[in-house]
């Protein structure tokens, strides 16, 4: 074989290699280890529409009702019809005709609430989902028999099976044949594959296009605040502030939505000359204000601190003495001492 041909053969797979594909470098094959049988069993609990993965077991409608009332009814209602927490599972609106045709006719009716049982075409889905994710606050706590029973109960609520019905791994397939919307799904569309064909197309018109221009829908004034005050959901400064949608007039100074935070008395600290030796967080020449505030939180320390600031001191935080600070005026002194002893979270000065 010529060297050209050899190169071409080597290159061929590269040319068709998808964008993320990379050759596996030497050594990568040693990463990861074989999964044990037990591990696969522990995690691979999925059940396919052809019932691959379905564990053996059975449960009847009455057993299902028992589990249901104890573990499911609090969210879904005694008859699966509650919309308190989730959309209703069953509403008793599935007809014999639906079961015969495998198409739930009321899905065409916009006035009818779409329930789970109206939609779900595959019995395996109910089994799989309940087993893996229910009950809501204790997923994976039901046994396979309990899941068979609960599924039987739901099917009975929807008139798919009688009340003396027992569902098991051996009759899942024949029960599937009664699923009310088993023929209601289509995979005939272009949205599964990147190269699928679109079913809708936009217009390329760019000038004097013939389009309808009247407003057919908008939020009425009473609904503008249904999501809260929009002025507080948009950057409060800049070119496009939010609309004030709360009742009552917009406050004049609505520009800043930032609440005032307790500030360190930076003016006093600067004016008093404190900042020359003290930082906020860390020891500089003297201790950090954070440390002082932590140590002397509480009004009882006020007199002590006032004395230290006015007369100076030494030996508490280290060898470096604190000089008397006569430049701190009485009011600033009061302000600083109050802040040092407040014990509150304080926004750092800016």
């Amino acid at each position, binding site marked *: 074989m010529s060297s050209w041909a050899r190169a071409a053969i080597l290159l061929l797979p590269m040319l068709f290699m998808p964008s993320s594909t990379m050759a596996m470098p030497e050594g990568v094959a040693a990463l*990861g280890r074989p999964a044990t049988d037990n591990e696969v069993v522990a995690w691979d609990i999925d059940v396919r529409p052809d019932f691959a993965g379905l564990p053996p077991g059975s449960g009847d409608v009455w057993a299902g009702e028992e589990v249901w009332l104890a573990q499911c009814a609090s969210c879904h209602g005694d008859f699966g019809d509650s919309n308190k927490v989730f959309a209703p599972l069953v509403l008793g609106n599935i007809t014999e005709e639906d079961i015969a045709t495998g198409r739930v006719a009321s899905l065409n009716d916009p006035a009818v609430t779409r329930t789970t049982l109206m939609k779900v075409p595959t019995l395996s889905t109910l089994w799989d989902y309940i087993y*893996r994710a229910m009950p809501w606050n204790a997923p*994976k706590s039901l046994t396979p028999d309990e899941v068979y029973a609960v599924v039987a109960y739901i099917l009975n609520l929807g008139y798919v099976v009688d009340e003396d019905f027992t569902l098991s791994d051996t009759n899942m397939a024949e029960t599937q044949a009664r699923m009310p919307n088993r023929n209601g799904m289509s995979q005939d569309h272009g949205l599964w594959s990147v190269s699928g064909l679109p079913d809708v197309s936009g*217009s390329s018109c760019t000038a004097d296009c013939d*389009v*309808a221009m009247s407003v057919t829908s908008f939020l009425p004034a009473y609904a503008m605040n249904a999501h809260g005050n929009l002025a507080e959901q948009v950057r409060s400064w800049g070119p496009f502030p*939010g609309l004030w949608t709360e009742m009552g007039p917009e406050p004049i100074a609505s520009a800043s939505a930032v609440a005032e935070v307790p500030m360190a008395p930076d*003016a006093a600290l600067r004016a008093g000359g404190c900042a020359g030796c003290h930082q906020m967080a860390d020891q500089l020449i003297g201790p950090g204000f954070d440390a002082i505030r932590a140590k002397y939180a509480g009004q009882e320390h006020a007199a002590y601190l006032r004395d230290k600031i006015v007369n100076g001191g030494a030996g508490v935080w280290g060898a470096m003495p604190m000089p008397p600070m006569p430049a701190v005026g009485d009011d600033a002194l009061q302000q600083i001492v109050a802040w040092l002893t407040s014990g509150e979270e304080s926004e750092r000065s800016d």
Partner: protein
Amino acid sequence: MASDAEQGQLAPAPESFLPKELVEDISRQGINPGRRSLMQGAFAAAAASLMAPTLLADDDPDIVNLPSWTRSLGKPVVVNPYGQPSPYEANIVRRQSPGLTRTDQSSVSFTPLQNLFGMITPSGLHFERHHQGWVDIDPRRHRLMINGLVETPLVFTMEELLRMPSVSRIHFLECGANTGLEWGNVAVPTVQYSHGMLSASEFTGVPVSLLLERAGFDRKRATVLLAEGADGSSMTRTINLENALDDALVAYGQNGEMLRPENGYPLRLVVPGVQGVSWVKWLRRLEVGNTPWATKDEVAHYVDLMPDGTHRQYTSIQEAKSVITAPSGGQKLLTQGYYDMTGLAWSGRGTVERVEVSVDGGRNWRIARLEGPLLPKALTRFHFDWVWQGNEAMLQSRVTDSSGYIQPSRAQLLEVRGTRSVYHNNAIQTWRVGSDGEVHNVQLG
């Protein structure tokens, strides 16, 4: 501010700036936060008047009177070991749409698109969609299993996954139900709620193709993958093997750091161009198969109801879509003149080829400027120079992607899909600007 007559005069000494009543009150009862802030206000005013130079009529006091941050020592490092936005950005957060869901564990929070820039969503603002709550997973105890049609089922630790060859890719992530509330009529006020189940990040991880090759998957029989989460819901979705082999990642990184817990820490599937529900979070298992699984979110949800009562199943690709994010619903223009109108465009089928903008409800269109880089299955930022002259305007944007697909109008979309399909609403969005400058979400017909 001092009156003209007082300007340039000496201000009173700061010692006497506190009102007498306040001083007496404090010496009687000590200091509480209210009194302290009164004092600080008085002190600041005194300090300002002490230092204020003469301010003339045209002068900006924010320039002439140096602000406190220009005259003080700043904060030290690591006040916030993990940095936080300015307190002045407190409005810009994820938000729930009231009444949309009745439990907060199976719910949505929306990204504040109206105030974001560029093509990346800050990780903390990435929208959330959880099906059974979110969890904090100890990465040392997390495993990824690959089984099904493979030579050997494998288990990987996070340490091993982080040792594997990795790539970093920028992609958008859009929920299939984004804009789902707007099928029938206008239902929400702002772009945060209408389009905010959309985010974009740089994701880092291991190509799925490499992991499948490592496991020795059955190339002849395999057509699909099942992805499964480690959370309570153990959410499962069937993935088209075509996508999986093309550009899907098992990702641990997001915008330079590890994934946020709400976004799947420590591991999630990234399926570029495909609806968010397939990007399974807290990913614990990939199973190679030859027939779809019809999981709960493939038969009861994420199915598109067509006008004839049929549900479309496995509608995965997010078709091309665009929206103007600023100005947008719930905002207002304060003055006439120039604005940098801006928005986002994206396509699950490739790159953004062109974005056009109309300010007259779709009658006339002009080309918008695209901000690069133009990456496949990523967000593309567009800009449109606009001078608002105080008249009513109907703002729209329309994207064309690299496959030639043109974003449909609402009428064009509804003609085929009806109004009840919930998912995959990629219609052109209209914002009405009133002559008062208020911007409102509207639909035209």
